[in-house]
């Protein structure tokens, strides 16, 4: 699914958080949204997920305006939030069933799809465990499995590896890339960690609410005359 954002601006009171941000995401590809803390990534996710109302600009999902067709858009978007959004006291399966119900799926459908996703993430044997009993990496996997239950074509992940160790971070990143390759999923992965981004990824660099770069990692480096993304990120944002 394609996403087109044009001239997105957003302010909290008097404070501008996004300024004239425009980009287009390619269907079936992995995109990294790179920006230091406070760059405006979560606000952009808020707009894409309708948690924030558009103040200025336009968002088109598969050619349809998010403003005019919010239900259709939400049906096609899966989201993994930065903060945990699982019920820790409920089991993995109960969490998945709650999400499925919110998307209008019957218990039977929810069970079939839930088991399929848990199997894909090697978590089927933990289906009846309370989420509280899972480690951070497994919880994140459950959140991704949940985001995929209603078969979205766009997956938004807002700093999904926060709080995870290096091995879990790498495994999660690999998992999501596989979704793009095998299922043709469009992915927007927000992060401030350069090591989660590959040079052939499409990279959007956001800093102080402005989109400073939008191209393949390699191409951005060439344009900036830098050796790698870390150096590019540092020269553009002063961070990293």
């Amino acid at each position, binding site marked *: 699914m394609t996403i087109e954002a044009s001239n997105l601006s957003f302010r909290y*009171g008097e404070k501008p958080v996004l300024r004239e941000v425009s980009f287009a995401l390619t269907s079936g590809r992995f995109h990294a949204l790179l920006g230091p803390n406070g760059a405006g990534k979560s606000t952009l996710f808020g707009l894409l*997920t*309708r*948690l*924030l109302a558009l103040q200025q600009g336009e968002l088109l999902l598969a050619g349809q305006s998010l403003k005019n067709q919010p239900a259709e858009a939400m049906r096609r978007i899966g989201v993994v939030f930065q903060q945990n959004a699982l019920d820790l006291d409920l089991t993995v399966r109960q969490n998945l069933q*709650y999400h499925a119900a*919110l998307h209008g799926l019957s218990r039977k459908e929810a069970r079939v799809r839930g088991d399929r996703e848990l199997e894909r993430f090697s978590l089927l044997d933990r289906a009846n465990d309370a989420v509280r009993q899972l480690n951070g990496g497994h919880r994140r996997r459950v959140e991704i499995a949940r985001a995929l239950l209603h078969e979205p074509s766009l997956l938004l992940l807002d700093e999904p590896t926060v709080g995870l160790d290096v091995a879990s971070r790498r495994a999660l990143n690999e998992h999501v890339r596989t979704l793009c390759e095998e299922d043709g999923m469009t992915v927007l992965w927000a992060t401030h960690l350069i090591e989660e981004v590959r040079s052939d990824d499409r990279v959007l660099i956001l800093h102080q609410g402005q989109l400073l770069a939008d191209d393949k990692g390699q191409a951005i480096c060439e344009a900036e005359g830098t050796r790698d993304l870390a150096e590019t990120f540092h020269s553009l944002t002063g961070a990293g």
Partner: protein
Amino acid sequence: MKAAHYWHCFVGIQTREWLRFWQQRTRFASALVRPLLWLVVFAAGFRAVLGISIIPPYQTYITYETYIAPGLCGMIILFNSMQGALSMVYDRELGSMRVLLMSPLPRPFLLVTKLLAMGVVSIGQVYVFLLLALLVDVEPPLWGYLAVLPALILTSLMLGALGLLIATWIKQLENFAGVMNFVIFPMFFMSSALYPLWRMNEASPWLYWICQFNPFTHAVEAIRFSLYLEWNPMAYGITTGVTVVLALLATAGFRPQRTRILGTSRPA
């Protein structure tokens, strides 16, 4: 979206609320201590002070315990609704609210269903309280337990919507202590929950009118009359009207950016 989608969503939200209730059943049981203290201790102390004459819906002289039991049912719902609404916007329920708001179904439907689900759990507590009240001889007619159900549902929706409206829009009341001092206690004490309004009128006419304008008074009266199988169109009418207005305001005016649902602290 088809009707079946709405139905699955409705059932899913209710189920989750009951699952959480079951997980936290000790907390819910402890929430019954407050109204039971009022019923057993406060009512025993004040029984001699406050004589109750025969007033509708009662057919005879009643004990003070019998008088305040419907008000305490309202109190259970009042505390739960305010606490539930605050947790939707500020703390425990934030994760589930994020997931809730990602549903493609209309937001007002989701919010009202969520408020109803929280209300159903409160109503379960009210019934447990009414059963325990039998021990102090509060004995409404058997059919009263069924007849009171619509009034309990209306009250829980009305107070849940009020809680959501307050939690979303009044920044100063973002903790439970603030809500308790400025919403729960004034609503509870300036109502007919603890004393009949004619007595309030004798003491102070202006306080009497405040009580009359308090929607909680009418919710308590709707509970009281239906529990004793009497029809009170004014109490029901006002409670229904206020519920509709508050539910419309709370859902139409709901703005995630005024809450902590986005995961950031609320902007000024």
